[in-house]
């Protein structure tokens, strides 16, 4: 039946559709992540490159296989699995064993996304689900950090040799990074992250190093500058809500500022809190996941404030040096509640009268 045969063409809403599709948005998120990814490879060398390739490949393959198992059309082409893989690699330590990275990728897509019904249904950020699983499953490996720029900033060695823990046999205990570093006769290099140094040795890292990305840590969290650049790109293209990162960072700065003012000796400065660890990467690329964040502007402010405050509280008062992952997962979990509390009133509807 063609449209022309009727005098009036009747269709259901929506009548005006936006040009943006899921695939386009996801592709641009990948573009925004590329500088961060490239810098991670530059800082940490061949191991980081292998890990990024492995997690991305695992995520895409898992998504494809699960779609086939569910007898659905494959959803690999919407790039969401690629983003999950990239983000997972970027929030793991650079010398993480590849077999564990594969486990993380499979868990991210199956437990984080497919079980809930695929993209759009997942209450949590899939990459963070995978990382949380890995954190609970392999607590030692995931807190073993490799030094940045080993052995020197401009040396080729980083790109021709692989860090030993990366290629440890499946199901076997990885080699320790410390032993590896001694093996290549480097001394005076420590793989401790700025946050761990702050927490356990009470030693602050210069702010400029944090900003440019000269520090140890997860593969993608090194350079705050490139992360912000990617965020600005996405905001400018209106593919990300600027309120998410801004609210998280403002709250984190405010809460840590209050701590800093209460005791300048014991607590780090707010600027250190903002630019260290995974807060920047989490705020810009993970918390801003459209599926897991609230819809109304007020809701997003509440959501961001919750994540920022919980991150700082875990960092300063909890047992772990870093808390961004758990803070974002908690924020994701609260999203349906926030959404139902901040639902805007329908135009013209009145507030319900309170029954006596």
């Amino acid at each position, binding site marked *: 039946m063609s449209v022309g045969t009727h005098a009036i063409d009747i269709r259901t809403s929506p009548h005006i559709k936006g040009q943006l599709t899921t695939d386009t948005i996801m592709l641009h998120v990948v573009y925004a992540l590329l500088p961060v990814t490239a810098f991670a490879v530059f800082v940490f060398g061949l191991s980081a490159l292998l890990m990024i390739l492995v997690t991305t490949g695992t995520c895409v393959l898992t998504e494809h296989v699960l779609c086939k198992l569910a007898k659905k059309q494959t959803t690999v082409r919407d790039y969401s699995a690629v983003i999950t893989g990239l983000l997972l690699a970027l929030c793991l330590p650079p010398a993480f064993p590849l077999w564990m990275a594969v486990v993380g990728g499979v868990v991210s897509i199956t*437990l984080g996304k497919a079980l809930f019904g695929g993209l759009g249904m997942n209450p949590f950020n899939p990459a963070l689900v995978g990382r949380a*699983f890995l954190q*609970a*499953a*392999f*607590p030692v*490996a995931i807190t073993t950090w490799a030094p940045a720029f080993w052995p020197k900033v401009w040396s080729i060695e980083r790109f021709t040799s692989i860090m030993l823990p990366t290629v440890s046999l499946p*199901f*076997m*205990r*990885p080699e320790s990074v410390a032993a590896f570093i001694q093996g290549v006769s480097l001394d005076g290099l420590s793989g401790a992250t700025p946050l761990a140094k702050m927490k356990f040795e009470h030693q602050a890292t210069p702010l400029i190093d944090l900003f440019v990305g000269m520090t140890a840590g997860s593969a993608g969290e090194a350079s705050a500058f490139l992360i912000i650049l990617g965020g600005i790109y996405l905001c400018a293209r209106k593919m990300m809500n600027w309120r998410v990162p801004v609210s998280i960072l403002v709250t984190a700065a405010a809460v840590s500022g209050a701590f800093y003012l209460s005791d300048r000796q014991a607590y780090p400065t707010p600027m250190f809190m903002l630019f260290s660890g995974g807060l920047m990467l989490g705020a810009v690329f993970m918390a801003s996941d459209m599926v897991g964040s609230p819809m109304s502007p007020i809701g997003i402010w509440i959501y961001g404030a919750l994540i920022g405050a919980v991150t700082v509280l875990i960092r300063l008062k909890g047992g772990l040096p870093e808390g961004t992952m758990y803070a974002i997962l908690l924020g994701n979990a609260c999203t349906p509640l926030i959404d139902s509390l901040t639902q805007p009133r329908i135009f013209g509807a009145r507030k319900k009268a309170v029954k006596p």
Partner: protein
Amino acid sequence: MSESSSNRDIQVLLNGIWKENPVFVQVLGMCPTLAVTNSVRNAIAMGVSTVFVLVMSSMLVAMVRKIVPKQVRIATYILIISTFVTIVDYVIKAVSIPVYKALGPFIALIVVNCIILGRAEAFASKNTVYRSVLDAIGMGIGFCIALVCLGGVRELLGNGSFLGVPLFGPYYEPWVIFLLPSGGFFTLGAWLLAFSLIKERKARRAAQEQEQSV
């Protein structure tokens, strides 16, 4: 006549093991199922104690089923069950202190295990002593199998061993998450998935055969 009745008795016994498995089908008794299955040893200890309490209390409930007034029957069941749980509690303490410490409060919590109370209310209070004991044995074996299924997977992955015997050599990297409560949920979910897959496949095959015969 006698053959068919003994056939029915076997059916009662098998019911709890497969068709109405307390954990995988009825999803009852989740508290001990998730809490104490982080090793096969704990799982077996929990399973055996539950079987003892289940069989003894089903027998006693079936014996007194005609003299207990309806209004106080639940209180009576609880009293009977807790008597046997107290016995189990003392026996485990006497046999092995490590197991006693590992099971902790979950021994006492057998009293409120819904499998036991459920069988007392749904089966033992309506059937003869003989059939009630058969039912209790079947359900108990089903519960044990389920616990060992969970404990086996969790100990294998979380510790690299089975019944405390290391299987993968000294360099195995344990998946600590499977010893934590969240690992219990993951494992249970995976087993439930596997069981429902098998059941679905069976049902589909049965339906096909029926179609062919028609």
